[in-house]
């Protein structure tokens, strides 16, 4: 850090401390994907967060928002990070209106705590916790989703309203706390998956669903990519109403299709039997979710080192082509590629082990990206080692990037919110 930068931070600290009761010097552990941080502010309310951002604006600080820090290395490293705005003190589940099936929470609330709060009324927020320890804000910023998306969609289908703080410290709301509302622009959609580059979300309202009385998982082995696709197609076009259709494809070839059925005890039993008959082979039902269900495949890798984390999206009918492309690319590059995801939604996550040669990663990424693009989708490198991130276009081509830049310019003209982290250098 330059002397000038240090001086600026010192001046800012006073202003920030009067805005927020918890402002501390950052430690190496606060670094954002290797980028050192100067200060950490932990606001306790939207009003405090707004004061913090106003002070940051005055001093021209570059701000990186943080929920619980479980995905801070996702995306590209920010160009700079003077101040981390940490939302972990804003952890309250503000309101659970069980009769209205809605919940309002602060952004730093743990997804698990939200589930516990609404679970007592037999309800759930239908967002799978694919990264353990995630906050609501981090879940929104990275738009994570899991197996349940087949039936209920993703954050964009569940978020009803948001309170945000802009880069200039202005607080704004959009949406509301009712399940149906078309008044004004849906800013919630815009902030989902924006990686902290537009605004800081401080509160969110979600619609909830009842927890079903029963569930069964039908699993069946699949020998080839074509086999996987055949099985997935059978399930999605049948009348078994799957809550999830998961695909597990190991690096060594061969895989599993898992079908989650949820509903009433009698209904689930009947649908499980129908699913087993439909899928044939070694299809069988269990009450317990299979190992690894809903977990991102790179979480299975050894703790040491940084595996490469991929997200592939594609039209449903291209499932076999994407699996085959991954298998072929990994084979050619001599690496292990583990794919897992929502075959019923056209999303697969991939893991390449830590230490995989960058050229090999590039080859796998290139071939998967081509297969996804042909199927109307995309391949994103969500996370990886500094070498991997430096060695390729991690976000890939993005249509409408000019329009996205214009949105960014409106919300954050000084590029002070997580600059460089998002698509196209946004």
């Amino acid at each position, binding site marked *: 850090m330059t002397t000038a930068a240090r001086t600026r931070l010192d001046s800012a600290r006073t202003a920030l401390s009067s805005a927020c009761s918890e402002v501390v010097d950052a430690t190496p552990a606060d670094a954002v994907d290797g980028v050192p941080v100067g200060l950490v502010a932990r606001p306790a309310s939207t009003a405090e967060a707004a004061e913090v951002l106003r002070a940051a604006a005055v001093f021209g600080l570059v701000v990186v928002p943080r929920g619980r820090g479980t995905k801070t290395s996702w995306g590209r490293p920010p160009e700079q990070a003077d101040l981390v705005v940490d939302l972990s003190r804003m952890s309250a589940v503000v309101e659970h209106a069980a009769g209205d099936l809605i919940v309002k929470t602060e952004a730093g609330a743990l997804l698990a705590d939200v589930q516990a709060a609404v679970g007592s009324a037999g309800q759930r927020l239908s967002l799978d916790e694919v990264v353990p320890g995630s906050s609501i804000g981090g879940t929104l910023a990275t738009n994570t989703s899991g197996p349940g998306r087949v039936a209920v969609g993703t954050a964009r289908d569940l978020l009803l309203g948001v309170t945000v703080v802009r880069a200039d410290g202005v607080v704004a709301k959009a949406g509301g706390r009712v399940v149906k509302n078309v008044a004004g622009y849906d800013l919630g959609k815009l902030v989902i998956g924006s990686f902290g580059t537009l605004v800081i979300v401080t509160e969110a309202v979600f619609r909830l669903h009842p927890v079903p*009385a029963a569930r069964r998982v039908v699993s069946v082995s699949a020998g080839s990519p074509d086999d996987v696709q055949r099985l997935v197609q059978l399930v999605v076009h049948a009348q078994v*109403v799957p809550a999830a259709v998961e695909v597990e494809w190991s690096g060594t070839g061969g895989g599993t299709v898992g079908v989650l059925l949820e509903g009433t005890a009698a209904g689930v039993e009947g649908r499980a039997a129908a699913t087993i008959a439909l899928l044939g082979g070694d299809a069988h039902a269990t009450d317990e979710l299979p190992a690894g269900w809903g977990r991102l495949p790179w979480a299975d890798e050894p703790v040491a080192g940084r595996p490469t984390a991929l997200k592939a999206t594609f*039209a449903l009918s291209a499932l076999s082509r994407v699996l085959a492309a991954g298998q072929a690319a990994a084979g050619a590059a001599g690496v292990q590629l583990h794919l897992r995801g929502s075959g019923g939604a056209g999303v697969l996550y991939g893991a390449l082990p830590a230490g995989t040669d960058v050229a090999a990663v590039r080859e796998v990424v290139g071939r998967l990206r081509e297969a996804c693009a042909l199927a109307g989708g995309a391949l994103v490198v969500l996370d990886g080692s500094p070498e991997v991130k430096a060695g390729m276009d991690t976000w890939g081509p993005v249509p409408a990037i000019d329009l*996205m830049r214009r*949105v960014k310019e409106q919300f954050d003209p000084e590029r002070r919110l997580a600059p460089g982290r998002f698509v196209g250098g946004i």
Partner: protein
Amino acid sequence: MSGTHGTETTAGPVEGHVPPEATSATGEAGDNSAGMAAVTRVARATLSPNGVIDDPTELRTYECDGLAHYRVTPALVALPETTEQLAAVVRACSEHRVPFVARGSGTGLSGGALPRADGVLIVTSRMRTIREIRREDQRAVVDPGVINLDVTRAATPEGYYYAPDPSSQQICSIGGNLAENSGGAHCLKYGFTSNHVLGAELVTPQGDIVQLGGLAPDAPGYDLLGTVVGSEGTLGIATTTTVRLVRLPEEVRTLLAGFRSTDEAGAATSAIISAGVLPAAIEMMDALAIEAAEAAVHCNYPAGAGAVLVIELDGASAEVEHEYAQVERFCTENGAFELRLATDPAERALIWKGRKSAFAAVGRISPDYIVQDGVIPRTALPEVLRAIAALSSSSGVRVANVFHAGDGNLHPLVLFDDARPGAGRAAEEVSGAILDLCISHGGAITGEHGVGVDKAAYMPKMFTDDDLDTMQMVRCAFDPDNISNPGKVFPTPRLCGEVPGKRKHAHPLVEAGLADAF
């Protein structure tokens, strides 16, 4: 399938009250006549000869959408047949600073497609190709003028349908649905247009063609598509659109339950939702709405009912059977005196006919009426309904209630006779007071009809200046010149950082006195 995910009678324009004067919100004919002449030249050079309308008599055909009390004759109507043609017209508008308004079938109920007197109305009714029904991908790719119900008709042979079913689905277009984020009776379970539109080609207000989303989910970058859906044509014009197709359910059961009062029907609704049952639809009508529907379509609803519920369950047969038993019990426990289960498509269609024709049917019992679209938390239903009844009796203005009870979306129909002096004003006061009730109960001013020109003046009651200003940052990113459906949604346009003074009127709706119209 008939009547399940909703066939119905065609909704005509909704008559209302207080046509606004030609204002700066709607533009003034002759403003920027040189620009309009230039755009007209481009349109003539680009479109089919009969795709450009500037004959004053023909133009009047397009003077309103489904909210017929707002009328403005556009300076020009363009009927493009392709995205490229449409983009060429928009590009010309952008070059010459001529405002444009997109229109699908013109069924909107908030004046969202109200033309500009100084602008071009771009009508998508000649863009009606269903490009692909992709069963394997559970998607359809359609042009913006395609009629909502035609998507379902095309997908039904494959075992699929398009879930959002606004009441006007026989005539409304996918492009209009996208602009308005249209709902419908079945959005309780299946969500709104925004949950079902996965990709769209967007013609930006500069006339560029960009692809947002597509066949695959989670496109990297900002979810501009999610922002464009429901933006009421203010961020550009969506053309070829990719929508989700939903598997036709194995079983559908439609139940008609008669109650003595809306309180009882509301309690039954709450009991159903609280028990974790998620019907495809729960619709309520009160006595006055039932009377109107009977007069219009003879739907034979239970005699003497103070309220009816139409409850539809769909899904896997085993689940539906179980849920039906629960629903039946909750209705009976809460006072239902008659339960009628439709056992075939004809019976189902008859039950739905009463509900879906209700708006038009109100014309049978009142010469004029205002339709509201407020939303409240569903637990507030009984309280708000009582408050509406109190408003009605204290003002002497009759209010018929038809609504999506499951998700708290009210459609009070405020009845009046415009021939009686002061009646229109009294009706507007009641209508406005109902929206105030919705807001004070934590609700919203519109659940599915949109803000348009009709409710723009109400936006400040729901949102702060900062909220509206922040929303308009998006507007400025997409449309810095404020030419894409200007004057809609926001009561006051935000200056997008360009040289001030470019506009003649800074606060058109306020200046025009529209804010006082409520």
